[in-house]
Every structure is written in C-alpha cells, then in structure tokens.
C-alpha cells in the first residue's frame, strides 16, 4: 500500500498532465451555463379543461408532509385519467436540487418550492398569470397569493409563480398541564405578560421555551415574532420582499435581538439549544419537557396524536393590549415548472386543491393548515378540543386582522444558512452582541443582493 501511494513516476505525471490539458481544452472553450431568459411565451393559450386522455403528473414533494400525496390520491380518485408520479425529498434537499431538477429534461410538472426569485430569474418557473385570469383566482383574498408573486427582482408584487397546498400559520404551542402548574389560566395578551410567564416558569422549575437552534436557527421564530411586534411589520415584509432600500438594521430588529439575548441569559431557552435539532425539539416538547414551543400548524395533527388534550396554541401576543396580531404565515408553495409536460393539468390540480370541498377538507385534516381559496368558500372544521381547531381558528383570525408576514429566513436564498443561523447560535451563546447580529444579517443580505 505504501508503495502504491508513494511511487508516482515522472512519465506518468507527464501523461496525467497531458490528459489534464486535453480535458482543459475540450471543456474550457465556453463559459458554463446557458442563457435561458425569455424562452416562455406568457400569452400562450391555456386550457382549463382536464380532458379524458391519460395524463401522468410528475410531482416533486416534501418527505414527512403527507398532504401532497393525500391530495394527489383523492384527485386521481375523482379524475381516473390522471395518475401521479411522486418523488419525495427532504425540504433542504429540494432547496438544493430544485434548480437543477427543473433545468433538466425530466423536470417535474408540480414542485414544492423554496424561495422563488432565483428560479424566476433563471426562467425555470411557469408564469401562472394566464391561469389566474382563466380560473378567476382574483376571488381569493389578494394577501393570500402576495408572497407568491415575483416582480423585477422583488417579491410581493408582479406575476404569480406559485400556489399553496395549504397556508400555514405560526405561533406558540403550550403544554396545558405545565401551564396550569405555573398558574397560566389563559394565553398571554401582551409581550410583557408572556415574559412574566417565562419568568414564572423559570422560578417554578419548568423549562420556559423548548426551541431548536441546531442546523437551522429555530430561535429565529421567537426573534421574528418579537420583531413583528416591536415595529411596523410592513418594514419586515419589505425587507423579505427585497424592496429597494429595505434594511434589517432597524430599532425593531435590534430590540427583538436584545430581548432574545435577555431570554438566553435568563435561561429561558435550553442550555443545549445549539445542539438541539427540530425533531429533538418536538420530541422533548411531547415528553412534557417545555412549557412553550414556537412552531407552525403543520405540527398540529401530530401533537393532537402524541399529547391529546394537553396542548394549546396562541398567536404571539401584541406589544400593547388590543394591538394587531402579526404572525409568520406562508403558503406551502408549489409551482409549475417552465419545462412541465402537462402545465394545464398541473394548474387544474392547483385550482382543484383550493376549490374542491373534499380537497379542502384533506388540507385541514391531513395538512393541518387553512386551505386558502376564495373567501366565500367555507373553511372545513376540525374536531373540537383539538389544537388543530385552535390553529385553524388562529389562521382565520390572522386573515381577518391581515397580519400575515413571510419568514425573514426566506428573504434570500442563503440568508438563513449563511447569516441568521450561525449568528443566532453565537448570540444565544454570548458570542455576538445584538448590534453585531443585526449588522451581520444585513451585511449578508446586501452581499447576496449585489450578486
């Protein structure tokens, strides 16, 4: 073995070098990548009929979220000529694969999407405006589809590029037994009340917040919940949508960061938060090892199963009594690939998900989320005394208060991994100051936008 590794005769080095040179000249003639812009014809006629010809829809969905498959099965039941071919991956894998999968010849028809701006820039996503008109999606509340619009390098306005398979809402889950143990009789009405409960829990020997912060910063949930309350939430939304001049370096973000730092120093997060991942957090919460958990309604059905009757949910409280609730809420975005073989059938499916009574019911019972769709359609009800019913109610309340904002983590493709996660890990370990945190996040944001 030693000889194999050490003997490398000069002649062979020469041979290797010449092979390299040949390879170099063979591949290095042209720049990598291709110009794919403006290959789409936006005014192409669209069909809103499914027809009777056999169709196979290729779908690329997220592992661990059975909603997409459940909807596909029901759709095939109702439309026997349509079959689904579903490929599943973890969300982070989809984020990494999506551009290449969609640029390939085997591009799926319907795909679970990460952030969309780059995909639109590379012309990989189908512009859904013709379907918007054809199906009359203008009857949906405009705010519902706002996050799915992409304009000139910004989000929030412009053409429609995706639809939601359910519209999620986030907030605070709480363990009812632990809550009564520390004397919490009803959800807190203000941030101050929430902080009082945290302090009570701490002195009462109850872990106040069970939140993950490994891999990706779960503490960004409470951070943004505070940020939404400490300033004008449209400022937050503008920053996420990359509006010119928007900045993260605001008094609201700074105050939120200072609060998180204060909570970390007070021991409101677990000492091992930086070593706790999402699955670990949910597991610990289910075991009754934490009073609060910041999370979204996608966990509702699961929590109803694992701790029936013992879990409640509230929207993060407002700063002043009677203020407007604001919460991170995002569609479970699915788009149609620009290279889709059956774009009309894909759009038909997306419309059906929002309007078919059975599909809407599946969105609630399987997905745990509001089905969205036209405002005049009734929202299916969940079983009473479940946390699913509570999150559904919260979702409607948030819609009525018009308080939905996207996640700051979605502002750019790399902001979560490159800035928010490492800096948040540093912050709660006392290795970063609140001022340093907001500046570091903004610096990464500017770096990415300048590319």
């Amino acid at each position, binding site marked *: *073995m*030693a*000889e*194999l*590794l*050490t*003997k490398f*005769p000069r*002649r*062979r080095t020469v*041979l*290797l070098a010449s*092979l*390299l040179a040949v*390879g*170099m000249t063979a*591949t*290095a003639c042209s*720049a*990598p*990548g*291709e*110009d*794919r*812009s403006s290959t789409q014809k936006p005014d192409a006629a669209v069909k809103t009929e499914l027809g009777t010809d056999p169709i196979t829809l290729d779908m690329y969905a997220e592992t661990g979220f059975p909603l997409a498959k459940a909807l596909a099965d029901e759709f095939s039941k109702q439309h026997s000529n349509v079959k689904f071919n579903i490929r599943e991956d973890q969300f*982070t894998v989809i*984020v*990494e*694969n999506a*551009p*290449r999968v969609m*640029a390939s010849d085997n591009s799926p028809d319907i795909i679970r999407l990460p952030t969309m701006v*780059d995909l639109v*820039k*590379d012309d*990989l996503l189908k512009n859904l405006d013709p379907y918007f008109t054809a199906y009359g999606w203008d009857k949906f509340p405009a705010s519902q589809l706002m996050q799915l619009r992409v304009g000139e390098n910004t989000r929030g306005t412009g053409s429609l590029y995706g639809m939601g398979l359910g519209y999620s809402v986030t907030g605070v889950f709480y363990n009812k037994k632990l809550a009564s143990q520390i004397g919490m009789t009803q959800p807190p009405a203000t941030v101050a009340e929430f902080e009082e409960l945290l302090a009570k829990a701490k002195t009462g020997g109850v872990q106040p917040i069970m939140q993950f*912060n*490994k*891999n990706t910063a779960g503490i960004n949930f409470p951070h943004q919940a505070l940020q939404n309350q400490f300033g004008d939430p449209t400022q937050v939304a503008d920053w996420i949508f990359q509006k010119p001049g928007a900045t993260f370096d605001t008094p609201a973000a700074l105050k939120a960061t200072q609060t998180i730092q204060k909570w970390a120093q007070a021991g409101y997060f*677990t*000492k*091992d*938060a*930086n*070593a*706790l991942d999402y699955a670990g957090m949910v597991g610990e919460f289910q075991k009754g090892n934490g009073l609060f958990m910041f999370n979204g309604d996608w966990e509702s059905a699961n929590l109803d199963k694992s701790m029936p009757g013992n879990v409640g949910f509230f929207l993060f409280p407002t700063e002043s009594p009677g203020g407007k609730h604001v919460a991170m809420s995002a569609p479970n975005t699915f788009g149609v690939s620009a290279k889709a073989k059956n774009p009309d059938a894909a759009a038909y499916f997306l419309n059906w998900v929002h309007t078919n009574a059975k599909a809407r019911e599946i969105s609630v019972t399987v997905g745990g989320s509001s089905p969205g769709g036209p405002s005049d359609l009734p929202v299916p009800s969940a079983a009473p005394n479940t946390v699913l019913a509570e999150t559904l109610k919260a979702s409607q309340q948030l819609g009525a208060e018009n308080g939905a904002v996207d996640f700051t983590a979605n502002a750019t*493709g*790399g902001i979560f*991994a*490159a800035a928010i*996660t*490492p*800096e948040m*890990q*540093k912050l709660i*370990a006392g*290795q*970063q100051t609140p001022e340093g945190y907001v500046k570091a996040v903004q610096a990464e944001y500017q770096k*990415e936008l300048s*590319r």
Partner: protein
Amino acid sequence: MTSALGSAPTGRDDRRTRTTPTRAHRFRWARAAGTGWLYVLPALVMYAVFVLRPLVLTLQYSLYDWNGIGVARWVGLDNYLTVFTDSDLLKIIGNAIVLIVFFSFIPVALGLLVASMVRRITTGAFGTVVRTILFLPQVIPLVAAGIAWSWLLSSNGLVNQALRAVGLGGVARAWLGDFDTALPAVGVIGAWVLLGLCTILLVTGMSKIDPALYEAARLDGAGPVREFLAVTLPSLRQEIGVCLTVTIIAALASFDIVYISTSGGPGLQTTVPGLEIYRLAFSQRQVGLASALAVVLMLLVLACVLPIQRLSRGEKP
C-alpha cells in the same frame, strides 16, 4: 489515482522498440503496447470522465461567477481572492487544520501505542477478536457514527450521565453545541473512527519486522522503550506515512461526521471546507466560489501530503 494508470505501458517499452532493429519485432512490440492500451481503456475512460473531467471543470468554474444554471460571468481570480481574504472562509480552513490533530496525530500516536501492546497477541482467535473490534469503527458508515456520537455527547447522553455519576456534573454540557468544546468533540469522533485503521495498518507493519532485530536490541541491553524507538518506529516509517496520508486527507476533506453531528455549528465553530463547499455550491448557489475553495482545499491536501510521502519514501533501514 496511481492504480488506474499503474497498468498503463510505460515509455520504456517504446525505447526498447527503437533499439530492436527488425520490423517484425517492432510490429510485435507496437501491437503489444496497443493491446495494453486496449486493456486499460475502460478504466481510463472512467477515470477521464469521473475524475479528470470534474477536476478540469472545477478549475474552470472557479474562474466564473455562476449560480449553476444561468449565464456565468468571467471574474478571473476574484474567487480565489475571496477565499484568501474572507475572514469566515479563513476560519473554516483553520478549523480543518485543527482537525488534523484529532483525525491524524492522535490516531497515529494512540495507534502506535495500541499496536505495540497487541503485537504479541496478533495470532490465534483472540488476536482476530481484537483486530475485529479495533477495525469496527472503520466499517460503520460515518453517518451512523455521527448519529451515535451526537446521542452520546448530547446534554443527557451517556458521556454526561457518566460524568454526573462520578460527581463531575459541573463539567457536563452539550458538547457538540458548546462554542469551546464543539470542535474538539467532533475531533474525538474522527479519532475514534480512524484509530482502528491506523492500529491495523501498524500491527500489520510490525508483524513484518524481523524478530532478529528485537533480539539484537535486547542483547544490546535495550528496554521496551528503547526497543520501540530504535527498532519498531524506524521500521514502520512507510506504514506511518500511509496512516498520516490517509488521516490527513480525512481531516481536511471531512464532511459526513461534521454534517451529521453539528452541521458546522455553533456559529462557524465546526464548519470545515468540505461542508462550506457543499453549502456554497448547492444552497447559496455560488458555484464559482465553491469551486475556488475546492481547488484551494485540493492544493492544501497536496501541500500536507506530498512532504509526508517524500519523508516516508526513504529507503527502509
């Protein structure tokens, strides 16, 4: 790399062709050489397509600003400039160098110690058991090792339970989530994985040492330590060279263990070049910068490994 090219005919054959005068001879040699090339052609094609081409493409991409899909922009050496000036990237390269201590020096040092202890029991059933146990970590997939160790090192894991049991609860912590201990903790996992490989290589090397040398040393009045320094160590130069080469590459190019156990956190405390290359290319879509970092990593590996090769290549005493 050498194994793919190793069977290719060398230039010596051509020279011999030239010195043999008759045409028939020349024809036979040429045909033999041609047949030889034919034999290695499949391997050569695979090598060219799956090793050389990606290598060349990486070099090419590193000179562009490219998101992997759209139009690339020529930026010359800018990506390399970023690699050498960005404080985060320099810290990440530094982390890999720290890992060499854990992945390389500790397994080799411990491996020498363990190997000299088990040298005498290498034969028989017991020897087989010992070797199997030592080699086991090498057989376990790195991902499984990473998961198992992150359980062991978690705040309520076995390591902390053991510490609390002996009254050292004060030092118990989430080893992989703590800024001061995360990188050493990752290093311990690597040392555990690579110790077996080093020990087995060294035991095998020791079994080849002529027993007469030990006898001679003992006759000269050498104790176990002197014996080790004067006989064992010099005889194992090549094996130690291989161990260092393999483990240093494992340290610098580490990915699996880090990805599973810490994902590079907390902060950038355990982020290594392999992980950063992957993130830059696939999540941040900076294929150019990722490629430049990959090229720098390759050069770093060569810079560390080539001197070791040179040192261990010297003739056996």
